[in-house]
């Protein structure tokens, strides 16, 4: 697919620049132009162009070779083609030595340019496919793969980098679809356990007894069907990280077992009498409010404190709307490639619709919505209509103030909702409400708001 690739044409002669750009646009590439080396370097800082056509002779103290060298510093993977009207063997050698992919003399044969560009794009497509496949194969996500410009998300990723090499247990809290597993994998990959296994277990998916044998393994004959010894996930993760997703859903008995593992780093296989010792870093995640579960007696407080050594709270997508365009564009690019569809853009209307939507399913829902739109869309640009299926859900439910409500009632309701949204984080709730923490505590006490 051509349209993903952007080309920059750099020439001080406007007509050269524009004519080559127009010719390449007819071929379906997104083409930008720059009239000087300096402008080209600036543009390459902002955008990742796949191919640069750079004129050799340009005034203003920065010729084509110098421009190429600076661009290569910023974008080592870019392919640079030097064009010149005055070909000499010396300049050709210099250009190639400094890393030009090709050196062409203008005016050049259209066939030559067409073949050249096709050849470069073919290689780029293969490289890109290779990267995607490799990433998919190993699921080697790093902290840099988290797409966000939200300050809270940046803080989270900084924290993840800081604690990556510690053995301390991490509790990731966030709504469904916010990317808890991605953060867990990033955490694992950034630390010194990266070369060791990362084992993910969804605690909600299995019944209590099955989960127990899944986590700790079992001995031969320990129960019907256990016809051989089995190693559990904790053993498989030895030396690495175990990711316990939906930890809030585990039974009281398993909570006790887990507490023991966290305290002693040791456990017994189901039906076993021999203690198994492991060196495992535990990263747990939950979409339910564990503090509340503790308050209601559904979750052991001692286990909660053991898990909550380092707390990471991922904000839902609706609280970081600035990320929606970034993520949507990323998904369009990735999914269009995976689905082999020639779709490369989101219209303004489509973006508006995405920004208006509330995203209860968070990033996962956004990813699915983009996939659905790509599959059903008929053009190269995803339009508002392609996201028509979100329309019904976008309509916000009518909200009305109950008759007879007092200012105190409304204040209580507002504080309750805000605390729920920040999942009990008082500092954050106070900042959202625009009041002091002490004032908020006072109001919580006065209105007897559960935390």
């Amino acid at each position: 697919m051509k349209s993903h690739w952007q080309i920059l044409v750099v020439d001080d002669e406007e007509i050269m620049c524009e004519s080559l750009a127009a010719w390449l646009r007819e071929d379906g590439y997104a083409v930008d132009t720059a009239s000087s080396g300096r402008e080209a370097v600036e543009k390459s800082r902002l955008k990742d162009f796949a191919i640069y056509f750079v004129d050799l002779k340009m005034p203003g103290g920065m010729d084509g070779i110098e421009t190429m060298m600076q661009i290569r510093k910023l974008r080592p993977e870019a392919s640079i083609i030097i064009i010149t009207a005055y070909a000499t063997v010396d300049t050709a050698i210099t250009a190639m030595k400094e890393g030009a992919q090709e050196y062409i003399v203008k005016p050049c044969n259209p066939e030559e340019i067409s073949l050249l560009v096709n050849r470069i794009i073919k290689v780029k497509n293969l490289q890109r496919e290779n990267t995607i496949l490799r990433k998919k194969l190993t699921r080697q996500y790093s902290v840099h793969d988290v797409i966000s410009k939200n300050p809270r998300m940046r803080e989270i990723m900084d924290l993840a980098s800081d604690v990556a090499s510690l053995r301390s247990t991490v509790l990731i809290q966030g709504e469904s679809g916010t990317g808890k597993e991605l953060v867990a994998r990033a955490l694992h990959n950034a630390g010194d356990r990266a070369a060791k296994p990362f084992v993910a277990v969804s605690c909600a998916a299995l019944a209590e007894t099955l989960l127990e044998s899944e986590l700790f393994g079992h001995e031969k004959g320990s129960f019907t069907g256990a016809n051989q010894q089995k190693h559990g996930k904790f053993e498989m993760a030895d030396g690495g990280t175990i990711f316990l997703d939906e930890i809030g859903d585990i039974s009281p008995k398993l909570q006790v077992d887990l507490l023991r593992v966290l305290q002693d780093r040791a456990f017994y296989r189901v039906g076993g009498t021999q203690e198994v010792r492991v060196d495992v870093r535990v990263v747990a995640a939950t979409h339910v409010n564990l503090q509340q579960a503790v308050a209601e007696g559904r979750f052991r407080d001692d286990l909660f404190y053991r898990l909550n050594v380092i707390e990471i709270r991922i904000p839902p997508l609706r609280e970081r709307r600035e990320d929606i365009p970034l993520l949507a564009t990323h998904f369009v690019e990735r999914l269009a490639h995976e689905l082999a569809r020639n779709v490369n853009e989101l219209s303004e209307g489509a973006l508006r619709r995405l920004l208006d939507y509330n995203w209860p399913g968070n990033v996962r829902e956004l990813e699915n919505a983009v996939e659905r739109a790509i599959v059903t869309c008929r053009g190269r640009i995803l339009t508002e209509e392609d996201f028509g299926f979100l329309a019904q859900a976008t309509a916000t439910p009518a909200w009305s103030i109950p008759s007879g409500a007092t200012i105190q009632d409304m204040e209580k309701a507002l504080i309750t909702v805000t605390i729920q949204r920040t999942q009990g984080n008082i500092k954050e709730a106070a900042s959202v409400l625009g009041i002091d923490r002490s004032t908020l505590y006072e109001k919580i006490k006065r209105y007897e708001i559960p935390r």
Partner: protein
Amino acid sequence: MKYLYVGATEEVDRDAVAAVSQRVETEFGLPVRGMEIGSVDFAYDAGRGQYGSIPVLEMLLARCPADAAKLLAVTDRDLFIPVLTFVFGQAQLGGRVGVVSLARLRQEFYGLAANREVFLKRAYKEALHETGHLFGLVHCAERKCAMSLATTVRQIDLKDDAFCAPCAARLRRHPGGPNV
């Protein structure tokens, strides 16, 4: 009512222009009107012995009639853009004006015996190609499609003088587009 104008420069082979007009009218289903363009000598570049297609497009834009959906000029002059040795034609992508050169479509240009049939087929294909650009189509990967990129007459000869199904569908979806 908007028309598809087909312009003829002063030196151009009139029979060829008439044949092209008819073919374009049938293919796009839009009413075609003829137009005299006059000379393109102002675009002559003595250094290259060719005519710049960009100044030609600028002139066409200035003279494009108000009732023109698009204006495609046909010339016998050999066209170029500064960075390339020649172009078979050029059009504003999704714009109003385009130009096709017949100069390199004749067998005689390559020292071969004249063949009117081959020449006219090439002219149809290039006219469809440039008009396709005017309706926003970019090059097509399907080698048989009129929108595939041809940089040699051999490649033009390999194309059909018609659009492939996806390109035809894109044309139909183009706002104010033709009935392909």
